[in-house]
């Protein structure tokens, strides 16, 4: 995956094909294949194919961001900094989509767009941390210095975030599936049909977000090239 992150045109395309096929399959099968009838959830259970993979992909993309921040501190190549920044941007896009799909789901199952809940608070804090990261980047002009300071904050914030996401669910109960005594989806609701859609959906969305990331990295590199030529 690492070489494809460099964003060279004409790299391997097989995983992009998988991404397209799986996401198309998710959209079509996700709306057509029958789902178990559950009280309260009803047909909104189909949101599982879209809401949950957003958070999985976000964690993968943010981990790529962390990895390249660490790499920047050890090697000081500006390429790692570009990847780390663009990964953070892509992660925020996925986080916003995860919040939007989750908010709709909450409206029709819990009755409100936003509820005070550990998972939701964790999501909100993730967004706040990365918005702060962008503001930090915006307030340093010199390129090498910006890359270095931002990398330090990225590592610091990511570790605190993981700790937070680990300890927070132990502190209070939650409405969200898989927390505070609530069963996760796979215990009761996820029957064979749903698994056949859900697993490809996760892989498809993760690959698609890596693809978005590679495009963003290429775009950023071209912009940089243009800027230095002028």
């Amino acid at each position, binding site marked *: 995956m690492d070489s494809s992150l460099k964003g060279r045109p004409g790299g391997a395309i097989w995983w992009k094909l998988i991404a397209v096929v799986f996401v198309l399959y998710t959209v079509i099968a996700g709306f057509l294949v029958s789902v178990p009838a559950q009280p309260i959830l009803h047909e909104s259970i189909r949101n599982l194919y879209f809401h949950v993979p957003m958070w999985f992909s976000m964690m993968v993309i943010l981990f790529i961001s962390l990895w390249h921040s660490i790499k920047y501190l050890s090697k000081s190549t500006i390429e790692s900094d570009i990847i780390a920044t663009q990964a953070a941007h892509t992660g925020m896009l996925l986080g916003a989509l995860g919040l939007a799909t989750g908010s709709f789901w909450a409206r029709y199952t819990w009755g409100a767009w936003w509820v005070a809940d550990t998972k939701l608070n964790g999501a909100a804090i993730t967004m706040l941390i990365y918005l702060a990261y962008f*503001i930090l980047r915006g307030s340093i002009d010199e390129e090498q210095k910006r890359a270095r300071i931002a990398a*330090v904050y990225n590592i*610091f914030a990511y*570790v605190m975030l993981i700790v937070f996401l680990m300890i927070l669910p132990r502190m209070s109960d939650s409405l969200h599936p898989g927390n505070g005594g609530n069963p996760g989806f796979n215990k009761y609701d996820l029957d064979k049909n749903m698994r056949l859609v859900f697993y490809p959906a996760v892989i498809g969305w993760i690959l698609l977000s890596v693809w978005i990331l590679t495009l963003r990295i290429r775009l950023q590199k071209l912009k940089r090239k243009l800027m230095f030529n002028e």
Partner: protein
Amino acid sequence: MLFQQIKYLIVKEIKLELRNKYALGGILIYVVSTVFVSYLSFKQIINPATWNALFWIILLFASINAVAKSFINESGGKMLYLYTLTGPQAVILAKIIYNSLLLIVLSGLCLCAYTLFIGNLIGDLPLFLIVLLMGSMGFSSLLTMVSAIASKTSNNFTLMAILSLPIMLPLLMVLIKVSKNAIDGLELWDWNSLLILAFLNVIVISLSYLLFRYLWRD
């Protein structure tokens, strides 16, 4: 060697702080006047949850103000001298320890003023003091590191708050939970949460120790 250097640096910090007392006095007045403003706005607080939340919020913002100056007000030349003389690790550890001492004094004063004006609802004082101690250490280590990051930017006082608030939330929520237990005066201490507090402190201090070496150079 490292301990010798840290001791020397802490003594230096205390000497400098006592040399211009107005900075220290400013922070102390800040706490007392914030408590007084809350007292005038709330008159009296009967609900323990509100009492607790207000106490920690006051302490949170006072700590941000107190620690913000630890790197921001330092001149570049003096810091460079210290870094070459002792090494960045000694500098950050000394700053963390010094700021812990500062915040312990600050939180003690905050508790006194809060008790005087707003009242004292604490049922289990020893536990509350332990939480206060660990909270001061956690705030100090986190904020010292963030202050070092923020000092490298152009608008550093705004950034200090933006950068520190989201990553302080885990610490703050555990602190509020344990101190609520202390106020209620439960028979059994919540060792689990106290362990989480200690664990958070250890993580932040070791991260600062590891990452600061990339931060100090200009």
